[in-house]
């Protein structure tokens, strides 16, 4: 609503800013204010990590301004990146995450397709059930899960506890339900006529999934992948419980257990390790975000 006044004497117009744009202006100001506040709040820890990682142990313990590096050094980076132990943690984390993402996608995408599209007896209940399993916190689950794997070891003689690959069985209990739920949502948003057209064109259910649904729901697939990767990369409780030997540890647990010796905290290397550990998810976010944002369903139907 803008009011326009026309001066009849001269052919010039003065357009006053109406209430709508004034509202918008204030909304924007408040948005910027809170977003800046939030950015400062969430960026302070990584910045502090970066600053600390560039300091020597002596400088960290010295009573100087903690927000400034007076004698920058890369010794923490060199120390970690040349340590076989740290590289082992990194490799374990990478293996676990890549396998978990693969396993999760292989299970949750077909599961979501079946639950969203192949109407069968109990499919709606099952879909809700899948999500409910996600609501059980891992801090409640780890003890029974540990018992399960311990007994499995006793009965079969196959020892899974204290092996990094035990995590490949455990992480999917977190990732599969949530990713299935995300994918159900994405698949449900694909118009019904699209699979009917594919079926009439002669596609099997599997071809409909691989040639129509997966390409169309790519943004959802990427969201689910990012989620599964982040969960398995950052998971702390399960690896702390299930793995103990140094060569079986993943990054988050490895950093804590090896760089804290008794009551001695090697802050420089802890911060460096945490920073290096945060890099892969960041890189993956940056790489996949473009695909994620692009809406691919545009043009399928009227709209």
């Amino acid at each position, binding site marked *: 609503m803008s009011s326009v006044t026309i001066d009849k004497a001269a052919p010039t117009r003065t357009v006053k800013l109406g209430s709508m744009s004034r509202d918008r202006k204030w909304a924007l100001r408040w948005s910027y204010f809170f977003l800046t506040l939030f950015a400062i709040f969430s960026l302070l820890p990584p910045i502090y990590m970066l600053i600390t990682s560039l300091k020597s142990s002596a400088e960290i313990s010295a009573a100087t301004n903690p927000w400034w590096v007076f004698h920058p050094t890369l010794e923490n980076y060199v120390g970690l990146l040349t340590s076989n132990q740290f590289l082992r943690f990194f490799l374990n984390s990478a293996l676990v995450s890549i396998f978990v993402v693969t396993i999760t996608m292989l299970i949750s995408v077909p599961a979501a397709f079946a639950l969203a599209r192949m109407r069968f007896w109990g499919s709606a209940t099952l879909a809700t059930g899948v999500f409910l399993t996600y609501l059980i916190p891992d801090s409640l689950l780890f003890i029974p899960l540990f018992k399960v794997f311990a007994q499995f070891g006793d009965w079969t003689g196959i020892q899974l506890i204290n092996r990094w690959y035990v995590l490949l069985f455990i992480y999917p209990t977190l990732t599969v339900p949530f990713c299935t739920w995300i994918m159900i949502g994405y698949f449900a948003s694909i*118009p019904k*006529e*699209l699979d*009917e*057209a*594919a*079926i*009439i*064109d*002669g*596609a099997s259910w599997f*071809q409909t999934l691989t*040639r*129509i649904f997966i*390409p*169309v729901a*790519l943004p959802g697939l990427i969201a689910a992948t990012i989620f599964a990767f982040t969960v398995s990369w950052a998971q702390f409780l399960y690896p702390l419980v299930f793995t103990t030997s140094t060569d079986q540890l993943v990054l988050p647990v490895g950093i804590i257990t090896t760089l804290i010796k008794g009551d001695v905290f090697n802050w420089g290397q802890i911060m460096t390790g945490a920073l290096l550990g945060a890099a892969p998810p960041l890189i993956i976010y940056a790489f996949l975000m473009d695909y994620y944002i692009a809406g*691919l*369903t*545009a*043009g*399928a*139907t*009227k709209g």
Partner: protein
Amino acid sequence: MADVALRKVVKRYDDVEAVRGIDLDIADHEFIVLVGPSGCGKSTTLRMIAGLEDITDGDIMIGGDVVNDVPPKDRDIAMVFQNYALYPHMTVAENMSFGLRLKHYPKAEIKSRVTEAARLLDITDLIDRKPKQLSGGQRQRVAMGRAIVRNPKVFLFDEPLSNLDAKLRVQMRIEIKKVHQKVRTTTVYVTHDQVEAMTLADRVVVMNKGRIEQIGTPNELYHRPATRFVAGFIGSPAMNFLPCRLEDSGGTLQIRLTDRIAFALPPARAARYNSLPRTDKLLLGLRPEHLTEAHAHLGPGIETFDTVLDVTEPMGMETLVYFGLDGTPVCGRVDPNAGAKDGAPMRLAMDLNNMHLLNEATGVVL
């Protein structure tokens, strides 16, 4: 290409019977339009022919074979959907060739068929575009192209023009008719738009509440409707229905509309209706074009009466006039130069040679 037959086909969803035992024979090359209001079962019938819905009872035959349990892909049909249902990640050419690629046709064959269909539909320039780069009309052409390249036995159209604006709808209607004249594939077309049904169909199937009301050519349905539903559904503006009684008056049969208005029936009509009981409650069915301005020279069966118009709607080539007859709203069509004005009195003529007489209770045209 093939004929299609439906035998006592029933579709039941839990307690609701969507299709209540319909019989329909569609000849090879024929263009059949299923028309009716929302929820009349026309789309369900189409989807049962496609195999997208199971049938509860009865038989569906395509080319003489019962296909009740044959999956859609083996029925050799192609379907065009209301919302186009194009694959958004594929180009126009890929969309059109998807079915052929799934069946592992040779590449050269696919290319020639796609090129041919694109030429037929005038979308050759769009072949490398994605659906989102196309307008609504272009998308609908691609959807038709996808059906044509398959060279199926039967085309199924599910309200394909409903998403287009009025002008484009008329244009695409003509395109569809042209395409059918060229490829001559047996076609079943569903619409709720009676104009589309009349203009496209070889024969129209009017459906209501899960049953077929009448099957016939567009002209048959228009001029010889079997029921009140068909008479009222086909034609725009709709047919007028006026409560009336038959009376004998001085040796002639006459029809009494109100206490004041009664007309003698023309001889042909009188002979036809003479055997009807005089006590029945009847309806006079009269299309608006048979209610016109009164001319000086009246032919046989043309009766005049005076009324006061409620509303007039100038349409350019004609003016629609609305008035009440004993409380029943009536619509007539008069010449734009006849001087019809809102609220003005006017002398109108009723052409009883084109009248229909219906039983009010059963809705059957007598």
